[in-house]
């Protein structure tokens, strides 16, 4: 249980100011920024599209950037060695880092969508709330899974900052956040399909639009597959690098 909640690791970077900023301020300012950019070139429809996209895309701050950085934090604090030799269950240890970020991600997307509906007047039908809720939960879990995967990669890197920065923003371009994926060249569309954000965002958009259950189930399945695949790959990476660390004794150096 201690491993799952890993309070110091999960909450160490989740200071109150960070949570307030990530959940309440960043979604608002990011949505306003892109709404004005879209408004300059397009109409109300473009603004609506961009606003919903960015409401969901801000999930990357708590799910990717923060989770990815926990590996750095362990190295910097000098606790990585202790973690690597502890007998704790590895899945609990690793997934535990994602529990609090999942909650923060849920809050971030929810607040973002509330802004979208109340401030930017994005059409919303209360009857679609359950479908939207399922989409948000699945997206948050999948994105944190992806963050854990990047955290696994970061285990091998000198720092996770560059990796975190890349995946913090690349979704804005490749996941259909600000314009439909079909606007991109085909190879970039395929690349976009690899990111859980693409499917999560598509599920949220479809839920908001009142898409039929069959359509939603397909999208939810894709998000869930992305989440499971990310976690599985993350565990694989963690085990690989852990073995390497034990063999060389050098992985934990910051």
């Amino acid at each position, binding site marked *: 249980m201690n491993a799952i909640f890993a309070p110091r690791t999960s909450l160490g970077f989740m200071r109150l100011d960070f949570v307030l*900023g990530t959940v309440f301020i960043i979604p608002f300012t990011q949505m306003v*920024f892109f709404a004005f*950019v879209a408004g300059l*070139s*397009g109409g109300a429809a*473009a603004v609506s599209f961009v606003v919903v996209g960015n409401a969901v895309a801000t999930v990357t701050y708590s799910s990717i950037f923060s989770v990815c950085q926990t590996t750095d934090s362990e190295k910097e604090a000098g606790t990585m060695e202790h973690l690597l030799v502890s007998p704790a269950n590895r899945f609990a240890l690793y997934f535990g880092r994602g529990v609090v970020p999942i909650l923060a991600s849920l809050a971030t997307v929810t607040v973002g969508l509330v802004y979208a509906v109340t401030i930017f007047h994005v059409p919303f039908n209360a009857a679609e709330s359950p479908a939207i809720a399922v989409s948000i939960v699945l997206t948050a879990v999948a994105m944190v899974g992806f963050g854990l995967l990047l955290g696994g990669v970061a285990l091998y890197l000198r720092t996770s900052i560059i990796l975190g*920065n890349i995946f913090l*923003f690349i979704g804005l371009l490749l996941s259909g956040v600000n*314009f439909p994926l079909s606007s991109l060249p085909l190879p970039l569309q395929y690349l976009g399909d690899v990111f859980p954000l693409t499917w999560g965002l598509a599920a949220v958009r479809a839920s908001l639009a009142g898409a039929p259950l069959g359509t939603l189930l397909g999208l939810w399945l894709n998000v869930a597959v992305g989440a499971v695949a990310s976690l599985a790959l993350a565990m694989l990476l963690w085990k690989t690098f852990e073995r390497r660390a034990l063999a060389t004794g050098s992985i934990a150096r910051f």
Partner: protein
Amino acid sequence: MAPNAYSRGRSLVAVLRLSVLTFLADPQWLIPSLIAPVVFGLVAYELFSGAGPFFVLYAILGAGMMSMWGQTLYGSGWATGADRHLGTLEPTLSSPTPYLYVVGGRVIWNTVAGLFGGAIVFAVVAVTYGRPIPLSDPLDFVLMFLFVIVTLASVGVVFAAAYVYTRYAGFIQNVGEFAFYVGTGCMFPVVLLPFWTNPISLVLPPTWALDALRYLAIPGYQGFSWGFWWDIIGAVGTTLVYLVIAGTVFKSVERHVLEVGDLNDW
């Protein structure tokens, strides 16, 4: 120590040299401040595509400014935070050289590095555009671009000064990033914002400089009604005010550290 036993100019050059060497030792740190602007530039380019040839300039100017913000303002703002983090803030402040000169050296280098970033972002968006960028007067454009970065640096120096007194520097910078982009109208004219926000925007020197830059580069641009030259005057005026504020705050910081000696707590 006698007042002439040290040289402020030499200190400034030494800090500048150290900043350059630190950067050259690990230049990958330019990358984080480039990723977001390049992505934002490409997103804006895609959003503006089909809206007319001059809209590519909005994407370039905005993304270039973001890159310079990343390097100049983050770097300068963090100039104090890094000292605090490394435990060198108090020794540096207690040295005979005024701290402003130490920060000044870092700011100068961050400004140069910011220009590298701006140039790279310009190149990426220009290559994506695939046609000549519609600039009527490239030389004036470059000069104005340099001026914009000076206004950004002035904000960075004030942040560096203010951050001595707070442990929330990172929080303010991260959370304030998009607010700054919106407030300065880096990718759209500030006049599109609600009128009541205009006074807030005008407190920031880059707002004036960017408006002037667009007047210069975009034919038919409709920014502040007072036009190009008043934008320049406003930018110079606010930049000077920021530099005076920074100097005053740094002096007060030095006095404060002599009185209480606890600035290293964070």
